[in-house]
């Protein structure tokens, strides 16, 4: 039985119920459909789903921003995306990915294990106004370059392909990183991580970063590479493919919206029930020549852009 389309218009609460099962990106786009959709897309009922209890407890614990200060749940959500908060005694920076609502973190370098990190002739701890953390690590001079970060997987959003990035900036007096391949490994503790080659020098050109909105950048490469494929560790066929690809791929820095640089360290898929820790290792232990002049803010973990 053919129905006249106009006859069957859903009321606002049904529209709200439908769009609350999509993503924040869909919801924001669909507010252009009609005034009814706009009203539904601004309702608290829709945004409640994306304000996880963890997030609410974090911001209510921050003191500065009480929940009642926010006129709507949507406003609160957007704040959670644009204003990272410090958690875990300032070791982690936490925010939500605006498009998907998934949880993002930056592990401060203070919370990382840095080889020689406490020896002042090799590394210094400085504070910078443009950093999220009270202290960041300034590389004075090392031969063995080794930064290792860990994060508990229970903090992550399930069924998500995450990408890890090293966030840093040059002092202007850097040396030793030009044409210096560095190994980056990302994986769950206790299983073998995936290794890829990265560079931290900006001489081979920077990938432009379009103020946080940039779609996943395509890395510089000498062979074929499909950046859209998520890594699924449990499927062996895919793993083989990925490894073959990665022989040809290396990653170079891009400029972030906040002025820092970032280099991709690797991807991983979190299903949601693997308990344990995710480990990220960045290391140069082959050439062992002197390297200097970069400032490291932390290791960022955010969902891969699926579209």
């Amino acid at each position, binding site marked *: *039985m*053919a*129905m006249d*389309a*106009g*006859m*069957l*218009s*859903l*009321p606002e*609460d*049904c*529209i709200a*119920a*439908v*769009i*609350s*099962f*999509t*993503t924040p*990106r*869909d919801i*924001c*786009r*669909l*507010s*252009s*459909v*009609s*005034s*009814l*959709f*706009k009203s539904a897309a601004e309702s608290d009922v829709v945004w409640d789903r994306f304000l996880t209890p963890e997030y609410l407890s974090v911001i209510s614990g921050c003191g500065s921003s009480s929940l009642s200060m926010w006129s709507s749940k949507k406003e609160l959500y957007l704040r959670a995306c644009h204003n990272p908060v410090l958690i875990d005694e300032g070791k982690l920076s936490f925010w939500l990915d*605006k*498009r998907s609502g998934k949880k993002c973190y930056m592990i401060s370098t203070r919370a990382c294990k840095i080889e020689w990190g406490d020896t002042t002739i090799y590394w210094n701890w400085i504070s910078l106004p443009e950093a999220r953390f009270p202290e960041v690590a300034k590389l004075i001079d090392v031969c063995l370059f080794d930064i290792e970060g860990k994060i508990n997987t229970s903090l992550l959003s399930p069924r998500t392909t995450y990408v890890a990035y090293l966030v840093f900036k040059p002092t202007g007096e850097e040396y030793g990183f030009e044409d210096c391949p560095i190994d980056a490994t990302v994986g769950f503790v206790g299983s073998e991580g995936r290794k890829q080659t990265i560079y931290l020098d900006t001489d081979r050109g920077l990938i432009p970063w379009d103020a946080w*909105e940039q*779609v996943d950048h395509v890395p510089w490469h000498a062979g074929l590479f499909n950046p859209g494929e998520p890594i699924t560790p449990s499927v062996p066929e895919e793993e083989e493919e990925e490894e073959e690809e990665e022989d040809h791929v290396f990653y170079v820095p891009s400029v972030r919206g906040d002025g820092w640089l970032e280099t991709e360290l690797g991807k991983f898929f979190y299903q949601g029930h693997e308990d344990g820790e995710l480990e990220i290792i960045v290391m140069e232990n082959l050439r062992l020549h002197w390297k200097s002049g970069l400032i490291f803010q932390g290791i960022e973990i955010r969902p891969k852009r699926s*579209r």
Partner: protein
Amino acid sequence: MSSSIASSSSSSSSSSKKEKKISLKTSDGEVFEVEEPVAMQLEIVRSFFADNEDVTEQTVMPLPNVSTAAMHGILEYCRAHEEFRRRMPEAAPEEEVRAFEAGYVDRKSNEELKEMILAANYLNISKLLDFLTGVAAKRIENKSVEYVRAFFGVENDFTPEEEANLRREYEWAFEGVDED
């Protein structure tokens, strides 16, 4: 037969007769004789019988917002869930429920889906409403504004300027949308 156990556990409603049926009349005048435990999944029906003492077994409850077509779909879903519940009262057989739901919804056109959402909303069947709205969400994910207008049969009631402003505000949400 074995229905004595079932009827004693659901004896909250007035009558003690087993295999009690409830009559529901759709907008186009068709009367459905529905088994009581199935009909009671419709919250609007449950509260109608709970709140009205003078209703009898002969009472036909009118449902002016539900078409016959939608009623067929709703009853198919509710009967299947009643069957799952009867077979496994402790915990629903998840795999089977999912397989049933997937097959059930694959056969529904967008128009039928919308009609059923409307009916499930009016009848206040929260489980079915959650399920159907989730299905509709999957069908409109990453689709263009124009596609969604057509999907829901919604008129664009913005002025060109209002719409342009909204699109500008959420520019980031428009990249990489599926082609219609």
